[in-house]
């Protein structure tokens, strides 16, 4: 595809860029949308999963007879029932890393079986399933399955898992090391650090967090014995992807025998793009029992089975001059992959994190190495802002440490090191080439808007109220628009990452757009209609958008990494342009003028210079439907498809400023103001993006202040429900001060960059920087997240970390 540099969106009907109300909202507000748990097929049986209660053990025996006798129980199954099912594959093996797992029959690395038969490796590892007439009967029967375990030693931290003598998780993976991965220039970085005027170092824990979409996952499998076809309804971010992975790669059935439907999905934030055992199990058991089989997770089940996020332990170093010029950054990270490589977890822990560590700064030497290890915890996966948030955290903590070391204002240090505007496209030396940016403009706007200059006065005022005020800055670049398929293959992604869209114009002039991505709350129906309507110059209300059903939608990889608007929407725009160009060719016939005399404008064609000789979109649609009088080279009907594979990624960026007040008496941290200026290029619907930005910041504040997945020494997840895992509530956040800059990406025809999750990337760094700023006079240089009142209270009283 030809890149269209900085091209503004088409303005056919002027609806793109407008804050239209979400057309999805009314149905949601009335509680009428159908989520997986609401699907009730006739004859449905219910599945419950027995997860391991221990983190690491050999299974000596499983006794299921008693459970089979219980009322309503239709089937109790263990690993022995699924020996011919292939393991769930991992499809993102970081570039250059060999997988140590026994290969999957299709040449992929096998990651985990659908049920564990010999050794359990984390609490919640699925061992057996019960299918019964009712959900309560299925759950009750789990208690009657007797499993005998021989306990094995447990390890839950990546660095400890790599130590000599650590418990071993997989025979095929000696030393628990899945991958040693590097990027950047080690020698140059080491030399720059050795020669530097100033170096600063930090040991950071980017704690494990749990995404916690409010809807737990669920799946319904329905096998049709007459046709041999399977239908899976699942809370998925990528129905096509799950179809691809499940049909050929796990179940061994033809691709066209599996249909995957994503109904309304209640949030995901990365977690619902992964392949889970339950998806295969409901299909297999539906075939065996001849009935639809339904499974809906509980909150505790979700916390013990759905991929978790972050979890790096890092030693990071920054080098610079006395006058504030950063010369090098280096990171050594121990990433905790959990018990099994999840669908794309190893890639998240390495490439997504490591290649982003230098952020918005122009740094001569950078290097990152990641030791990705297996431990007895839930598998690692994506979490809103995944990889990029971890990278921004370490860099932004380092910059503050450096600023304090050289006695310079943190804003001044940042300003001095931003990649200058004229250096784009900018090769960051770590593997990414930033497409476009005006970092100075963005940064200055945030500094101005946040009232940064007034902070000293505000600090003094706060002290009179027994509060310590702190201000924290964080900038970021987030790689989005995954992406260029060939480039992703170089990163080790085993699969294409393009998106597609189809537009069908009906005889009456209404339009149906189908896309391969699938919304998990992003109002795709509204935004994609805006894109098509704008290009075609028609009313968006006449545009229907369908997605989420592999039988109806063209192929696509799904919604993740803030890619839908910069991947699927460009496919819609390009398809609309195909429709338009066909209408210009056909218009020449209908208007009886040469093609170069046909003007397409405002949803109609007319003869150049003669507006009377015209046909409206609806008239054209009908004419194309009839197909009368068309020359042989113009096919009747209007039905076009585009597969969009961009030339490269896009790189949104931004600057956030957190202001906190710490109560001297209680150690409680309150975020009193939060300013964010983000740049996501051209935005399709600012109202919808605003909501995503606000939600994203709140999510990031959650990691800073309260969220943590806590495992005890036995590998038990202590924070396994919402009483023990804290999510931000309405009273925990203030209204934010938000603005944007607009730097279009040259890598797609809308000039779009990712938006949905980007604002989750910097808040943790901004808040920790603010808290450290508030405590700086006590000699505090760093505090690990989450910044619980107790932790801060202890630091206020001089205790060490």
């Amino acid at each position, binding site marked *: 595809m030809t890149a269209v540099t900085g091209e503004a969106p088409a303005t056919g009907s002027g609806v793109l860029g407008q804050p239209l109300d979400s057309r999805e909202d009314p149905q949601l507000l009335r509680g009428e949308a159908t989520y997986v748990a609401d699907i009730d097929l006739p004859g449905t049986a219910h599945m419950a999963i027995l997860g391991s209660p221990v983190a690491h053990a050999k299974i000596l025996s499983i006794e299921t007879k008693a459970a089979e006798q219980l009322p309503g129980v239709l089937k109790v199954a263990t690993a022995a029932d699924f020996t011919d099912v292939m393991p769930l594959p991992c499809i993102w093996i970081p570039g250059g890393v060999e997988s140590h797992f026994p290969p999957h029959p299709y040449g992929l690395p096998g990651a985990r079986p659908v049920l564990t038969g010999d050794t359990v490796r984390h609490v919640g590892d699925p061992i057996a399933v019960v299918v019964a007439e009712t959900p309560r009967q299925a759950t009750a029967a789990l208690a009657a399955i007797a499993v005998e375990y021989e306990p094995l030693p447990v390890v839950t931290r990546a660095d400890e898992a790599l130590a000599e003598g650590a418990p071993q998780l997989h025979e095929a993976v000696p030393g628990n090391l899945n991958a040693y991965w590097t990027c950047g220039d080690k020698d140059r970085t080491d030399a720059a650090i050795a020669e530097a005027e100033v170096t600063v170092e930090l040991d950071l824990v980017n704690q494990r967090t749990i995404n916690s979409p409010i809807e737990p996952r669920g799946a319904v499998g329905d096998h049709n014995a007459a046709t041999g076809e399977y239908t899976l309804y699942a809370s998925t971010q990528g129905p096509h992807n799950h179809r691809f992975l499940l049909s050929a790669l796990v179940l061994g059935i033809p691709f066209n025998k599996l249909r995957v439907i994503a109904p309304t999905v209640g949030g995901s934030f990365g977690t619902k793009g992964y392949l889970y055992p339950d998806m295969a199990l409901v299909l297999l058991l539906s075939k065996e029992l001849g009935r639809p089989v339904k499974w809906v997770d509980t909150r505790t089940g979700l916390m013990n089975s759905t991929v978790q996020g972050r979890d790096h332990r890092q030693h990071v170093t920054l080098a610079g001059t006395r006058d504030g010029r950063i010369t090098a950054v280096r990171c050594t990270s121990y990433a905790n992959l959990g018990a099994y490589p999840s669908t794309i977890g190893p890639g998240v822990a390495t490439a997504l994190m490591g290649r982003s560590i230098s952020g918005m700064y122009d740094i001569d030497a950078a290097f990152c190495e990641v030791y990705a290890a297996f431990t007895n915890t839930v598998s690692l996966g994506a979490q809103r802002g995944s990889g990029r948030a971890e990278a921004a955290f370490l860099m932004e903590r380092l910059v503050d440490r450096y600023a304090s070391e050289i006695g310079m204002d943190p804003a001044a240090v940042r300003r001095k090191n931003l990649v200058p505007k004229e250096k784009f496209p900018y090769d960051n030396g770590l593997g990414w080439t930033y497409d476009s940016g005006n970092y100075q403009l963005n940064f200055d706007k945030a500094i101005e808007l946040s009232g940064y200059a007034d902070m000293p006065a505000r600090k003094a005022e706060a002290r009179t109220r027994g509060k310590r005020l702190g201000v924290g800055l964080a900038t970021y670049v987030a790689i989005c628009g995954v992406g260029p398929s060939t480039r992703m293959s170089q990163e080790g992604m085993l699969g294409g990452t393009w998106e597609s869209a189809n537009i069908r114009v009906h005889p009456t002039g209404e339009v149906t757009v189908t896309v391969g991505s699938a919304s998990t709350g992003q109002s795709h129906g509204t935004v994609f209609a805006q894109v098509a309507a704008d290009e075609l110059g028609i009313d968006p209300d006449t545009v229907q958008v369908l997605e989420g059903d592999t039988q109806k939608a063209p192929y696509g990889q799904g919604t993740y990494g803030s890619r839908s608007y910069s991947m699927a929407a460009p496919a819609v725009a390009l398809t609309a342009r195909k429709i338009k160009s066909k209408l210009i060719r056909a218009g020449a016939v209908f208007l009886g003028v040469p093609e170069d005399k046909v003007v397409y404008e405002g949803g109609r064609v007319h003869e150049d210079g003669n507006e009377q000789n015209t046909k409206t979109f609806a008239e054209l649609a009908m004419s194309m439907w009839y197909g009368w009088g068309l020359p042989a080279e113009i096919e009747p009907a209007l039905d076009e498809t585009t597969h969009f594979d961009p030339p490269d990624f896009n790189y949104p960026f931004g600057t956030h400023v957190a202001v906190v007040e710490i109560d001297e008496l209680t150690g409680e941290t309150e975020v009193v103001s939060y300013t964010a200026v983000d740049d996501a290029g051209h935005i399709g619907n600012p109202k919808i993006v605003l909501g995503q930005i606000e939600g994203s910041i709140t999510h990031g504040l959650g990691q800073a202040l309260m969220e943590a997945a806590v495992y005890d020494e036995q590998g038990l997840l202590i924070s396994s429900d919402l009483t023990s895992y804290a999510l*931000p509530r309405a009273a925990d956040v203030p209204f934010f001060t938000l603005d944007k800059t607009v730097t279009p990406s040259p890598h797609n025809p809308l000039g779009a960059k990712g938006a949905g999750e980007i604002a989750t990337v910097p808040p943790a760094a901004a808040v920790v920087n603010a808290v450290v700023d508030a405590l700086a006079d006590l000699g505090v240089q760093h505090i690990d997240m989450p910044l619980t009142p107790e932790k801060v209270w202890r630091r206020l009283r001089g205790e060490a970390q």
Partner: protein
Amino acid sequence: MNGRPEQFTAQPNELLVERLRDGLGLTGTKVGCDTGQCGTCVVRLDGRSVKSCLVLTASAAGAEVATIEGETTRGGELTGLQEALRQEHGTQCGFCTPGMVMALGELVDATAGGEAPTEPEIREWLTGNLCRCTGYHSVVRGVQRACAAARAEAPATVPATVPEPAVVAASTAAGQEV
């Protein structure tokens, strides 16, 4: 039930949310957690919002139960609160939304005759409802908008105080005190 009598026999351990969803097919009420924390299951029992995952069906006998389905007809016009939330895009994935509408409806109704709730009061009221998508901002703005709209229609006369949020754990014994 939403103004209509319903008769059935409930098991002693049956939860109200189970009756609503599985027994009566009222799936607008959602289940998001196992511990009474998330608020996706909020319905109104005799006008007060309760978490229906913490109420035994039997204990609701004789009470008036209002669920999201009773707020408006299917596909019908939105209530003032729903419309305000729509205008502020107070819902993204929508999973928390029915519970929020039911909980916030009580706040909007309870304060309709007096002063509008302040921002901290709205946030406090919402602490029983978790939302992972919106970060609550658009929801809070929606409530402010709904309250303002209600007042523009009917000017306030009686100063009212915000009632204590009722969305708290039910006593496990009877599930009556909510």
